[in-house]
């Protein structure tokens, strides 16, 4: 021991300053899980790595992936919205009906997004005025939105007859013949929302309220307003996803969306956003959704029959989250150790 060590460092003070520069992203675990899975499938079935296939996989994540982005905000504010699938559906039905009624599809789509925001507003107003958790409110509005959508679509698919508008061709177009425009919108939304969550007042407030609602209220953060905004944002994103779906698929079926909510929450959770609030990762959610798609696609590339595919899906999911978990363990331990070595 050198002599200077006799003078103890100031307890509790930092021993080394923060090294700025590249920091391993927290999503590293799921990224490794995703890439690993793709490598394995691609090794066994090279056709899987064909760009066309990869881009179509990306395209497949679009609509549910957008909802997952919104759901990250909800989990971050310690809420859950169960009605996302039906907000998606109802907005799409609404927009498609406007198109059927002869309104310009772009305009109708815009109205559809607003309509989605309006549905979110309903959730928000009930939740805020009655001070109920969103999960309870949306347990009810889940059926309400579904029911109303069913009433207006009369149990039949809505298919805008005239699909000559650029709305349909642009949204279902593929750049360079392979890159789906819809997927680009999805990626753009993800990046924008990533910035919103981490670099805006609104995102800051969402995390603050989710981390400790009481402390947030005591700091003067308008918690009810932030919750309302978050639920409206979720609605608007559902609307956007819904109208894009109409443009992309050219129709909306009456039961489309019924099974969305579990998949969306699964993607967000696999991606690393905790249920306990205060924190969320958009990038993780996007990757989580991709993992889900890659699993289902991988099963088909390997020719695994329906009999086994469900089991394999589950097993791979467990493996993926375990891997993520182990990598996180490893990292914490490595950080601890590197800090300890600093003293040695």
């Amino acid at each position, binding site marked *: 021991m050198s002599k200077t060590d006799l003078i103890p460092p100031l*307890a*509790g003070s930092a*021993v080394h300053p923060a090294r700025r520069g590249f920091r391993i992203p927290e999503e590293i675990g799921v990224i490794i899980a995703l890439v690993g899975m793709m490598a394995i499938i691609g090794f066994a079935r090279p056709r899987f790595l064909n760009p066309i296939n990869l881009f179509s996989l990306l395209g497949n994540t679009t609509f549910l992936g957008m909802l997952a982005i919104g759901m990250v905000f909800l989990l971050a504010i310690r809420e859950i919205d169960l009605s996302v699938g039906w907000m998606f559906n109802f907005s799409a039905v609404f927009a498609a009906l406007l198109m059927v009624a002869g309104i310009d599809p772009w305009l109708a789509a815009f109205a559809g997004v607003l309509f989605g925001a309006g549905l979110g507003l309903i959730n928000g107003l009930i939740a805020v005025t009655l001070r109920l958790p969103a999960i309870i409110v949306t347990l009810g509005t889940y059926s309400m939105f579904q029911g109303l959508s069913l009433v207006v679509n009369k149990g039949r698919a809505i298919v805008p007859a005239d699909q000559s508008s650029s709305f349909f061709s642009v949204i279902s177009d593929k750049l360079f013949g392979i890159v789906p425009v819809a997927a680009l919108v999805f990626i753009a939304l993800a990046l924008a929302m990533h910035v919103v969550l981490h670099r805006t007042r609104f995102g800051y407030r969402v995390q603050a309220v989710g981390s400790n609602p009481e402390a*947030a209220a005591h700091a003067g953060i*308008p918690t009810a307003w932030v919750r309302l905004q978050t639920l409206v944002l979720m609605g608007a994103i559902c609307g956007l996803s819904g109208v894009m779906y109409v443009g992309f698929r050219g129709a909306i079926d009456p039961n489309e969306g019924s099974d969305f909510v579990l998949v969306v929450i699964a993607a967000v959770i696999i991606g690393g956003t905790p249920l306990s609030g205060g*924190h969320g990762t958009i990038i993780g959610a996007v990757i989580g959704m991709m993992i889900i798609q890659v699993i289902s696609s991988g099963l088909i590339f390997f020719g695994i029959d329906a009999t086994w595919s469900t089991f394999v899906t589950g097993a791979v999911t467990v493996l993926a989250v375990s891997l993520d978990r182990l990598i996180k363990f490893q990292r914490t331990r490595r950080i601890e150790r590197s800090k300890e070595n*600093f003293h040695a």
Partner: protein
Amino acid sequence: MSGPPMISVRNLAKRYGGVVALQDMSLSVERGTIHAVVGENGAGKSTLMKVLAGVVRPDSGAIELDGHAVTIDNPNAARQHGIGMVYQELSLFPERSVLANLFVNREPVRNGLISKREMEARSRYLLRQLGLHVDVHAPVSRLSIGERQLVELARVLLEHPRLLILDEPNSALNQRETERLFTVLKGLRANGITMLYVSHRLEEVFAISDRVTITRNGRDVLTKDRSELTIPQVIEGMIGQQREALFPPPLPSTVGATRPQMTVKGLAGGRLADVSFTARSGEIVGLAGLEGSGVADLLDMLFGMRKARGGEVHFPDGSGLPKSATEAARRNVCLVPADRRRNGLMLDKSILFNISNVVVGARDWGTPWYSPKTALGRANRQIDALRIKGLPHALANSLSGGNQQKVVIGKWLEIGPQVFLLDDPTRGVDIGAKREIYALIREMSANGGIVLFSSTELPELIGLCDRILVIYQGRLAGQLSGTEMNSQTVLHLTNTGEMPGANRNKQARQGDMA
């Protein structure tokens, strides 16, 4: 004293990543004594105690109990050795009843079922001794923080430990409650129970302890019998500098002749009824009252967290009561809440994030963007100004209690408030930091701030305030200033609602009305 010490630790070390909590800490405690451990915030006191309670595992070092080497690697092991601990940060179960908290993991079972009757019976006497008159079936979250502290204490006492560790057991207790506590502790000592006692209230340390260990930077620097020590010596040992006056003198006012003021007329709401007073800038107004007397309600109303039933209030900005905490924050009214962990901090977030709470979270003017770089600047500014021990990216949860408190204050200083509502802002803060906070409060008031200051510690009310308003059972029982501000008068007024010497008839009538 003959025989080995009850417990002794040698050369304990504990690091959290790059943070040194303990480094070469040694201590030995004689049987049947109350042994105080003092030291500034972050000195490692709580970490030491947690090691003894089996909650934290040290990196190195040895523990001996009755002269035998032991390893205490989990809480149950500590319990088996007869060690019980009252944690500094409350570790209660908010949703659970008082009884469930008191007997957690040791519930008495009759015929396979938990017997509430027996729990009640076994705790009744102790609760009465502690002066804790609460519905033992109500969830703990409904209790005030002082009551919760007593529950935590009672829980440990019910274990009948041989060694009782008390980590700031009375930081939320007022003088009377503290006296009760000390009576209980002295009784325990008479029964041969050994105690380790951590506190920042040095007068009390001197009143209760037999021996004192001073810690600094994760080491023990000095251990002596209390009788061989004086408070100034202790302070110097703790923070390694000459003692300055604990209560800095008032600063010259920097504001001009127009002194903004806040007037409260006939305010009612919560437990309060018909409270009127004026507070001027440049003045520190103390608020005294028992738990439940309504002081907290008053602060809540002024901060917009609670609706008033009636009355008129004028803030210096000319408007009335804020309708919400958000409005209050935007009108430069700040509240430093008493329960910092529940109401003051986002524990799983960094210092940096917490410091931006008000600037970014409450206000809605300025840029809608949140810049981590700017936030870092803010955090560094407050870390320097308040001497917070922690990196900007450290989680609030990893800070020592006193440093957490400074973060709560720091986030408000970022907006430069005009009205300061301070609810026990020095709770758990070391003497050096206390002095800094007092100086800060002086500065706030000198810069034209209006300060309402509530505290459970009488000396600081008397030492710092220009006037003290005493609230008793929801009404303003009196205003004290000048020589009236002595501890006897304040105590009497807070506890009876009457000035000392007032005639007994009146008191009796008061009793009938209650």
